[in-house]
């Protein structure tokens, strides 16, 4: 089960690196959240969260929205926009 979670996080990282998903997708996976949980935690509608998983839309988000995600995921705003190494 642990390996399953790790595999899912690794998958998320690759998807982000390939440009298919936004970094938000990786951070969500790392916190073992689903869009529904993240939506509740950040106070953003789940359809918007799902939309923000697309890189081209995520890159245009304003800071106020990013801050809500950063707060919900317990990362800084800068970290949220990037992928951590490792």
């Amino acid at each position, binding site marked *: 089960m642990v390996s399953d979670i790790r595999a899912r996080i690794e998958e998320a990282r690759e998807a982000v690196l390939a440009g298919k998903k936004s970094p938000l997708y990786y951070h969500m996976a790392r916190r073992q959240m689903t869009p529904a949980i993240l939506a509740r935690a950040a106070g953003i509608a789940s359809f918007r969260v799902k939309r923000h998983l697309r890189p081209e839309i995520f890159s245009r988000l304003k800071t106020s929205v990013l801050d809500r995600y950063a707060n919900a995921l*317990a990362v800084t705003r800068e970290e949220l926009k990037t992928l951590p190494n490792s």
Partner: protein
Amino acid sequence: MAQELTSAGKPFSHLHSAHCESGVTAALFRDKGINISEAMAFGIGSGIFFGHLPFIKWVGLPITTYRSRPGTLFSKVAKRLGGEFITKKYHRFWWSGDITKQGMDDLRRLLREGNIVGLTTNIYWLSYFPDRFRFQFNGHNIIVLREIENGFRVADPVLDHPVDCLAEDLERARFARGPLEPKGYMYYAKSVRPDPDFRSACITAMKDSCNMMLRTPFPYVGLRGIRYLAKVTIKSPDILEAHEARRRLANIVRMQEEVGTGGAGFRFMYAAFLQETADLFGSSELADLSREMTAIGDIWREFAVVSARIIKQRGQTEETFAKAGGLMLICAGREEQLFRDLDKVARNLKS
């Protein structure tokens, strides 16, 4: 067993327990001077249960539970043993302001007043856990003993020793969002009855458990739930892809064995409860039922072993989904018999 001081300066003996909620409940009672074992708390709170809820998805998988809904165990024990218990939940309305701050302030105040406080938390945000236990699950119970510098001293019943928890972590854990939100749920005993009536509490609890398991109108819980899940498991390789079927089965086993020790563990704990009641009432029938419960627990364990082999794809020929489902049906049959007998015995007991 580790000794620790509470905020009131009283010694608190931390016992490792198998299930978080019964452990916390028992510890709260012990702090008030009533000697109650974890199994007893589990039994009196009617903790034994079964439910498979295909329509509530949790990380994309249906929820399977082997114990009662988080929160009910404590309230049932409190009601049945008597005493004054205060529970508090924080609801989010537009007029409620910053509930996170309110929740933490209330907790600090209660600790200063010398209470030990039980909390419901999300297990993912409790950073003192090793990574493999951390996942988004909103039903873990812990006890806060006292406040320390930028954090709290926490007695987690699942761990061997009391640990330190950062205030920030605790705040997140208490007010996590998602399915079954804890909403900062906290509870403490203001006073308890000095001489609780264990006998009548046990009888009520046993009848309640039998009712939940046997006479439910709802096909997903109780024994009907076990049979339903067995049917689903047997069919799963035909209707789902092999990988997905294995994932579902892995989830069932995970809920059984890992999340608060799950199915077999709870059956063993209930057996311990029946043993204790047998001593309490001097009833040999209850002792027999206790042994039967242990035997059922062993079958659940066997089910877990068989399933683990299926998941890891070892022994393809002899270990099949049909066999795993069959074991579950055996459990269902024996548990049905057991609860029917228990129902009869409990009705004849005099409090």
